[in-house]
């Protein structure tokens, strides 16, 4: 982890009188969670590699309010939203990319009515568009032939009908893409959504992430691919609870692409 990556901020761009092509919305997990920070860095490397002119808000970014809204605190959500919208509108942001499906959903669907209208993309959609434009090369490299199963994040899949972008990227890695018995619109939640990430589960007979990890392990994967920092945590914990962390890795799609090329 101890390597510095160059990350321009919107404030720096503004000072130079320039505007970036896209704002990279890092999100709270991507900024503070040790595991998710690796995903953030991998994605930044890919952005540099594809010569994308991007910037982050840095210290001007704040929680989108997603967990507050899902917990029922509409006040807190809207306070967060209007604050963020004020910042983004001041920078005249047009296009946003984020590696977190929760930020993605909130920015894309819940900000417009409050005055924040942007073109919002999940990082797998954005990477796919870079690939299609020929700006990003995705090659098998070290993952060629590996068995990989993709866990659909609810807020990317069912919530916004994005199922193919992450899979298209994985196929480009020349991996053996295997589907879990519950996938795409039938995919089972990892257990973190709806603010569950931040609380203990209600009494039951099993944890949701264990149930989902069993689905994934049934496909005998080398790697479980994820597209969400929270799913990543939940699946990683699930794999540990099954004592499979030696043989099965949980990795974000962006990490897989960056690592395949040893970026």
């Amino acid at each position, binding site marked *: 982890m101890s390597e510095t990556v160059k990350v321009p901020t919107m404030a720096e761009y503004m000072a130079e009188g320039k505007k970036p092509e896209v704002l990279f919305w890092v999100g709270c997990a991507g900024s*503070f969670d040790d595991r998710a920070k690796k995903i953030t860095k991998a994605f930044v490397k890919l952005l540099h590699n594809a010569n994308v002119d991007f910037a982050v808000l840095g210290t001007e970014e704040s929680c989108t309010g997603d967990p507050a809204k899902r917990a029922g605190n*509409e006040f807190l959500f809207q306070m967060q939203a*209007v604050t963020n919208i004020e910042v983004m509108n001041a920078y005249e942001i047009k296009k946003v990319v984020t590696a977190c499906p929760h930020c993605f959903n909130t920015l894309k669907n819940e900000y417009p009515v409050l005055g924040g209208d942007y073109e919002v993309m999940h990082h797998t959609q954005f990477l796919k568009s870079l690939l299609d434009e020929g700006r990003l090369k995705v090659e098998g490299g070290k993952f060629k032939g590996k068995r990989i199963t993709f866990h659909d994040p609810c807020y990317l899949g069912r919530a916004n009908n994005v199922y193919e972008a992450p899979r298209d990227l994985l196929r480009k890695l020349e991996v053996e893409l295997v589907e879990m018995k519950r996938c795409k619109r039938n995919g089972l939640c990892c*257990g973190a959504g*709806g603010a569950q990430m931040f609380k203990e589960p*209600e009494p039951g007979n099993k944890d949701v992430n264990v149930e989902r990890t069993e689905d994934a392990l049934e496909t005998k994967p080398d790697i479980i691919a994820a597209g969400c920092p929270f799913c990543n945590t939940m699946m990683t914990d699930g794999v540990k609870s099954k004592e499979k962390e030696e043989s099965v890795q949980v990795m974000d799609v962006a990490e897989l692409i960056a690592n395949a090329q040893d970026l």
Partner: protein
Amino acid sequence: MQYIPNILFILVLIAGIGYFTKNVRKVIRNIRLGKDVDRSDNKGERFKNMAMIALGQSKMVRRPVAGILHIVVYLGFIIINIEVLEIIIDGIFGTHRIFAFLGGLYDFLIGAFEILAFLVFVGVVLFWIRRNVIKLKRFWNPEMKGWPKNDGNFILYFEMVLMTLFLVMNASDLQLQTLGADHYSKAGAYPVSQFLLPLFDGMSETALIVLERTCWWLHIIGILVFLNYLYFSKHLHILLAFPNTYYGDLNPKGELDNLEAVTKEVQLMMDPSADPFAAPADDQQEGEPEKFGASDVADLNWVQLLNAYTCTECGRCTSECPANQTGKKLSPRKIMMDTRDRLKEVGDNIDKNGSFVDDGKQLLNDYITPEELWACTSCNACVETCPVSISPLSIIIDMRRYLVMEQSAAPSDLNNMMTNIENNGAPWPFNQMDRLNWSNE
């Protein structure tokens, strides 16, 4: 004297349809107890959804066995009802098989009805076996004990009896036609009921006429009773699936609705020129402050209440719910059943008292507990799978809103999370000023 059957029939028909209409009005009044929500947009897309999902059963067949059986019963049910038209005309005017003049087409229709009736019978028996012999898990969840379980079976028995009456009626008619009885002129084709003829060997013409008339009367009375049973059962979906799919939410599933009342408050809070101590302007009547979220059915919107009446308790939502699968108390189907049961209770209260008199109960706690509400991961599996576009999630979120914004009754972990967001713009206790530290770690 000869008109007694006609008069009797008309009276039965008026009573049956009249009582049903009265109850349908109650359903509509109860649905209108909900708050307003605008679903008058995108008519084209809404009609398309209704055509695909309700009429075309597109989501039913995602589970092929139940889906195909359901289509058989559904098609049979609709098409056989064309026969009811003839029964009604015959009943009013004392005619017999009034459409017989259609000749070959009539033979085809009656033949088709018979085959469908047989298939419906088989389908319904298979449904009964799935519920009671195979005991599919989703029909044995805790909320399915007692009335909901019996209700499901009663509907199946009803259909078995109606189909049997229809086929026995036709068989006795055919036997009478063969014997050359008065009024029973040759008409219709009987590909199924002809196999019942051996049962009538040696029966006199009078006995056959009594049997045919008995089946005819029981069949039409049975249909009217079944029609009126709908209001008291989960079976209203045969009607409400259509408006429910039409008025369904067209936004992406991840989008939760925006609370306008909160937007106003937030705007006021963020407006530097707003005077917090200002008295309300004279023209602004200070009414009851708006309630945030839902603790009872009248706090929900009318589409959510329509959802509740539409639910037929199939349980696909509950069987897909990650919380329910892992043993939590939450069952999306129970959320819908509770909403409907409470709405009926409120409706009965209004019927009794003229207007709603506080009964010391509400949807929250008396029906749905916070433990159920907090178990939801908002994953939308229930919404995705519902064959008639019901959203249990929207009710769960509205009730969470009440718990958090009106009662400050969130689980303490969530309060910590929200305090963190308020203080440092992240759900964890990290300083906002450290948000970019990852870039040089």
